[in-house]
């Protein structure tokens, strides 16, 4: 789960990582009140779960409450890379001496937690990694021992952080690591971490990703999640236990297993089509789940054909067939559904489909053949 900046900062504040004082506003009046409460110059920042909001005009300076109100008016409702701004964060503005980069993340390759720091903050760290890799200091934190003070020193001295910021930066690093571990994060990125003219070191931004698998031991995860915007179709799918992501094409996809579904999207593309979604019914899907999946996919008007690609392991193809037949009986199906079944009880499933003929229900033997058929059907009538 990716947090909004304001949520990430609340989390950091709990662990005593210094963050600027700020308030959340959902309309211009609230923004004005927030600016009045904070006093002085403020920054009005769009709250979206996507990078690049600064370039998109989603961050504005305001020297008084009136300006804060009009800045909020401009930013609220703005569309930033497909994310509509529903909230702004109003923060007291200060004078920044230097900007740094600091992060902790799960390192898949080393299978531990990687800490990274750079004196080149405020810009995309991937760009720094490409143009000036030596400007990034890295330390691997042993999962069983946790962080030691020397790790913090290695980051700060390794990154060449200004002498004036060293002491506070060295103190912040272990607290940030503690926040990472104790809240089961997979990423905490502070970019920039800044040295203010007051000599304080503060986390000016916070990008936090939490590990959904750990939600059972963090009851507040669900509270954080409730603020997140989820497209209607994705929300419905999730409620039904389906892993669904909306995409831009016109071929609806249903498959079992993330890898096979990804591969199916690729094969559809190679056949000249574009997938309308990623939908993984997971392992051991039953008839009802399949029927629900078809309902969700075909509720999207952009979908011109559906491809069901199942390789049964735990999943039984006879139950998949039962679900498809159920959906055909239950829904007013308007688009062709191409089905490819293999694996556990595939023959039985194929026979069930053959025994329930429908001109919109097409069986194919192979994954490639099914993809080509679905793409051809989706394009029929539009060419």
């Amino acid at each position, binding site marked *: 789960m990716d947090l909004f900046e304001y949520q990430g900062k609340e989390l950091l504040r709990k662990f005593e990582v210094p963050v600027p004082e700020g308030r959340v506003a959902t309309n211009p009046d609230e923004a004005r009140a927030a600016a009045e409460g904070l006093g002085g110059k403020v920054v009005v920042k769009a709250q979206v779960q996507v990078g690049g909001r600064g370039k998109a005009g989603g961050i504005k300076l305001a020297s008084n409450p009136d300006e804060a109100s009009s800045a909020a008016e401009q930013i609220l409702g703005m569309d930033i890379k497909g994310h509509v701004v529903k909230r702004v964060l109003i923060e007291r503005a200060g004078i920044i001496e230097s900007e740094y980069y600091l992060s902790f993340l*799960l390192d898949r390759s080393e*299978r531990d937690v990687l800490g990274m720091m750079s004196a080149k903050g405020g810009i995309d760290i991937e760009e720094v990694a490409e143009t000036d890799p030596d400007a990034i200091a890295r330390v691997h934190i042993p999962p*069983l021992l946790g962080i030691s003070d020397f790790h913090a020193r290695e980051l700060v001295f390794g990154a060449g952080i200004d002498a004036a910021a060293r002491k506070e930066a060295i103190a912040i690093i272990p607290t940030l690591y503690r926040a990472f571990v104790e809240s089961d994060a997979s990423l905490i990125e502070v970019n920039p971490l800044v040295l203010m003219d007051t000599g304080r070191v503060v986390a000016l931004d916070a990008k936090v990703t939490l*590990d959904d698998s*750990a939600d059972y031991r963090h009851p507040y995860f669900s509270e954080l999640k409730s603020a997140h915007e989820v497209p209607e179709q994705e929300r419905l799918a999730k409620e039904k236990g389906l892993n669904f992501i909306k995409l831009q094409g016109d071929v609806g996809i249903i*498959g079992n297993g993330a890898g096979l579904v*990804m591969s199916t999207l690729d094969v559809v593309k190679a056949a000249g089509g574009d997938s309308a979604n990623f939908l993984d019914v997971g392992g051991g899907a039953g008839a009802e789940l399949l029927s629900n999946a078809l309902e969700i996919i075909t509720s999207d008007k952009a979908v011109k054909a559906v491809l069901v690609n199942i390789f049964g392991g735990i999943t039984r193809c006879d139950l998949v067939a039962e679900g498809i037949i159920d959906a055909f009986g239950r829904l007013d199906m308007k688009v062709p559904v191409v089905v490819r079944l293999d694996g556990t009880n595939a023959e039985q499933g194929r026979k069930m489909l053959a025994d329930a003929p429908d001109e919109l229900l097409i069986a194919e033997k192979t994954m490639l053949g099914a993809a080509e058929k679905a793409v051809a059907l989706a394009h029929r009538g539009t060419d």
Partner: protein
Amino acid sequence: MAILIGRDTRLVVQGLTGREGSFHAKRNQEYGTDLVAGVTPGKGGSDVSGTPVFDTVERAVSETGANAALVFVPPRFAADAILEAHDAGIEVIIAVTEGVPALDMARAVAHVRASGNGVYLIGPNCPGVISPGLANVGIIPGEICSEGPVGLVSRSGTLTYQIVHELTQKGVGQSTCVGIGGDPIPGSNFIDILTLFEDDQDTELVVVVGEIGGDAEERAAEWSKANMTKPIVAYVAGLTAPEGKRMGHAGAIVSGSKGTAKAKIEALEGAGIRVGRNPTEVAEIVAEIKG
């Protein structure tokens, strides 16, 4: 010989008395795997279709000589189960459980690796390991596999089935198929398994099945160039995956320019590895090399 599991495997299933555990343990047993014990705390002394159940793995090992463990316990207990199996002297631990917190796994993996006793941990969130004709530990459908000289290692479950199925249909059998799982912190990575295949006399060629996210494929490519004498054929799923969307697996996400299928394919091809554009083509390339 195969790798990781075979005729000498004596399997203990952690969570044998659960619905999934008993179902798949039975399937593994029917395949020919030597299932010797189950573990469910509090149910020691009972049995599941004749297989004795113990309260602890330590007890199961001392009573039955179990040397491999299949972890089928719920996510919040999985890391603990792995540690228990490891400390009881189990040599190969295969964790099927999906949804284990990543930091739990980071600690468990660190412990297993630090002990330096050569224990292999496969998974979590993986379909398991099968050495066709010898033993099956996990949820891979045995009937799609056939005996032969091709080793397979994969981050994905059903995609593995698809490729194994295509290989079998082309008459190409497998020595061992290893699902390492799609989690951010895997117990074993491609290089760990490639090392085993390189030393396995029954394996002549290895298929590597990757997907978007992380840099495991890139690292495997670089490592293989210097260390593998056996040919590798690869596949990478997710060429058309959009940035920033987690494609089902916790580990499968493209962030920025990192973790793209394109970069992985380039790295693999740069290391002289042939990459199939789809599962069918992978099997065709393998069949062509095997002649």
